[in-house]
């Protein structure tokens, strides 16, 4: 049973396509695990369709554009291109049975990343980056050793965590597979994995703002004196 979900605001932004791609990956992964949020999403999508239908206008050159559209459709390579991509998808998923227990979006990121390079953040916490091609958010896996306690830390940027396996708890509760958590910058917490198994999480975290070392420190004070 999943107890922690994306809130209505986040789901609304997702439904509208207004959510940053990095965060949307985490929401999508949660949706794959959570029928309750899928139902909510269907309801939210109704808003989009009502908005789409909200204004009626006269179409000036409908016939011409329809002719152009059909010409385009009839010159497409094959009409069955869609069916073919379905087959590809099946072969693909059969090939990667090992990652099948994860939400499809996570499996695909794992496939794309290839070998995971785990690095130790602390004795009980390891991290492996996933290649997502995002620039605003880092997408990675975190593994907390069973019974392991992560040192108290705060967040420099917004962090979204989706539990994939196992469970951990912190001051505010216990989180299990499928649970979706948002931590805002500055929130301090100290997660501890449960004793029975390692806890694996998908984490999407706002990429740190790059401070350009000495040059940045040197230049920044002068910027305000620039004319204009």
């Amino acid at each position: 049973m999943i107890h922690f979900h994306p809130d209505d605001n986040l789901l609304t932004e997702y439904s509208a396509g207004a959510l940053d791609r990095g965060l949307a990956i985490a929401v999508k992964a949660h949706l794959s695990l959570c029928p309750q949020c899928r139902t909510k999403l269907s309801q939210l999508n109704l808003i989009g369709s009502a908005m789409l239908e909200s204004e009626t206008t006269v179409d000036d050159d409908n016939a011409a554009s329809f002719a152009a559209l059909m010409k385009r459709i009839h010159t497409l390579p094959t009409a069955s291109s869609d069916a073919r991509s379905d087959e590809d998808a099946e072969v693909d998923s059969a090939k990667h049975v090992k990652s099948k227990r994860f939400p499809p979006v996570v499996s695909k990121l794992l496939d794309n990343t290839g070998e995971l390079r785990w690095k130790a953040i602390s004795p009980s916490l390891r991290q492996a980056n996933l290649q997502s091609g995002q620039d605003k958010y880092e997408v990675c896996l975190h593994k907390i050793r069973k019974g392991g306690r992560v040192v108290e830390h705060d967040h420099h940027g917004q962090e979204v965590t989706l539990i994939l396996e196992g469970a951990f708890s912190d001051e505010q509760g216990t989180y299990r597979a499928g649970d979706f958590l948002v931590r805002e910058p500055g929130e301090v917490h100290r997660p501890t994995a449960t004793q029975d198994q390692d806890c694996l999480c998908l984490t999407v975290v706002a990429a740190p703002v790059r401070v350009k070392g000495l040059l940045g420190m040197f230049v920044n004070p002068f910027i305000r004196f620039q004319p204009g």
Partner: protein
Amino acid sequence: MKDTTPGTKDSTRHWSQLLEAVGQHQDEQAFARLHAHFRPLIRNFLIANGGALSVDTTEELVQEIMTKVWLKAHSYDSSKAAASTWIFTLTRNARIDFLRKHARQDARTEALTTEDIWDEDDTHQPFVYLHQHRAQQQVHSLLTDLPAEQRQCLAKVYMEGKSHSEIAEELKLPLGTVKSRVRLGIKRLQATLEVR
């Protein structure tokens, strides 16, 4: 089931049946009627995007979306989603894709397609939404009944594709205010759909 006046429950059903006809037997006449109805709606919806899309781009996107409607219609199931909901998700994804391609971000390094992250249809849903068509009408009238400031925020999220913080900045409102306006609107929606 005879009336197809815009905005009625039967018209919702009407478009969904036409879309099924396209999916099941590549019915070009049905497609022509869908095109005549949805092309101006999709165009308006995209134009609302804060003028970010040029006229040519908008036309190109509409063509792209209608092409997708044709190609993917076979996977459409009218018992699970109204035609307009299905077309909304295609439109939304086309817009996401377009904006991504034109962002400074290099799309080639992307592991995931837009469809990996945003489903283009609800047909994978584990439940059957028996009241889909009625729900559609309820949402329609709910939107017109909402307090103006809630409707405005929802319109900015859906039609302009703006995040809450972008809306807050634009309207010079605290982020919390935007969030609560959206949330109140959504709560009304959920209450409407649950009381059947």
